[in-house]
């Protein structure tokens, strides 16, 4: 087999039309192309992180037809004709935080932030299915998402905050995130 023949043999591609955060687009992709690479490289939505690339960690979690999936383990061609939601879709149209985002802010649900986009999407799926989960249900629902910073407790309380404040509005004077004043502890 000549090298010329090999180098001119193009990888076959497939046409995919995927609706991401409400916007449909069509691309030619290799069949092996992962959904997470499609989102980050072709749709330029880099909020979805690649953590382990082996579906261990959940950093790449997105919603595929409203179901939480690890986008490093879904092929772009499998999402053809389907709707994907990423972390970029969570904020309200006016730019303010949604309930789950505000919950993470109020309850310190993140430290380094790497797992956060995946956590937020997994939590979004959980709250859509169960708007008032208890701590045990939250911990069980987040089994697919690893966090190495928080020890999970404040992620659990972030989800509880979102469940208790479904409009995402912070009651006046109730902000834990901004209540701490220098010297107030001394």
């Amino acid at each position, binding site marked *: 087999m000549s090298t010329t023949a090999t180098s001119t043999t193009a990888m076959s591609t497939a046409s995919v039309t995927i609706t991401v955060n409400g916007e449909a687009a069509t691309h030619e992709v290799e069949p092996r192309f992962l959904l997470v690479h499609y989102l980050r490289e072709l749709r330029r939505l880099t909020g979805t992180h690649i953590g382990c690339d082996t579906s261990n960690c959940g950093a790449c979690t997105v919603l595929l037809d409203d179901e939480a999936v690890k986008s490093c383990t879904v092929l772009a061609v499998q999402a053809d004709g389907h709707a994907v939601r990423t972390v970029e879709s969570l904020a309200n149209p006016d730019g303010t935080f949604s309930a789950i985002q505000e919950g993470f802010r109020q309850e*310190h649900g993140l430290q380094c932030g790497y797992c956060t986009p995946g956590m937020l999407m997994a939590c979004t799926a959980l709250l859509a299915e169960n708007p008032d989960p208890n701590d045990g249900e939250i911990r069980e629902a987040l089994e697919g998402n690893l966090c190495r910073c928080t020890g999970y407790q404040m992620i659990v309380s972030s989800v509880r905050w979102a469940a208790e404040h479904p409009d995402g509005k912070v009651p006046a004077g109730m902000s834990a995130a901004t209540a701490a004043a220098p010297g107030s502890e001394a």
Partner: protein
Amino acid sequence: MKNASIKVRNTANEIAAHLLEANPADLLVEDDAFAVAGSPDKSVTWAELGASFPPLQFPEGTEPGGLNTTVIQTAPNFSYPSGAYGYVVSIDRDTGAVTVERYVLVDDCGTVINPLLAEGQVHGGAAPGIAQALFEHMSYDEASQPQTSTLIDYLVPLAADLPGFEAGRIVTVTPNNTLGAKGIGESGAVGAPPAVVNAAAAAAN
């Protein structure tokens, strides 16, 4: 950090006084703006100070850099944070599996600026500390082939593997820095492994 903050605040006060054509000593800073005491109508915000163009709006004698400040401080000694951790664990008689039932952590890291973030640091140390004692381990077979080649095999703890933490705090200010603060980032990771092992040993007896 405290000294740098004071220096920035004093410089800002000088620039604000210059912009308000007032005596620096007469200014009060409230919320996010400087104003002359007694006449809050005319004020200068921090954002306006940040945007002011130095050559034209800084008073004479302002150091180059304006609000940019570096303060280097040498502490006379280390600070020594302390704490006490107590665990309740249960052991499954059939499998030997250890479950952490309750986890109480009390830390003393001196002055705390943001209690929520300080507690987050304790949780974040305690979780891998528990995992070091109970879960995480790199293992190899006889041919030195790693058997724990993924995060799941290595047993990074999941949310469902860990208990809720009960964190408390006492405050003993260190004299060795102006803020009176001591370290907190590593305390959970240091205290958790021996505390879990002690609890498991007590339960096994």
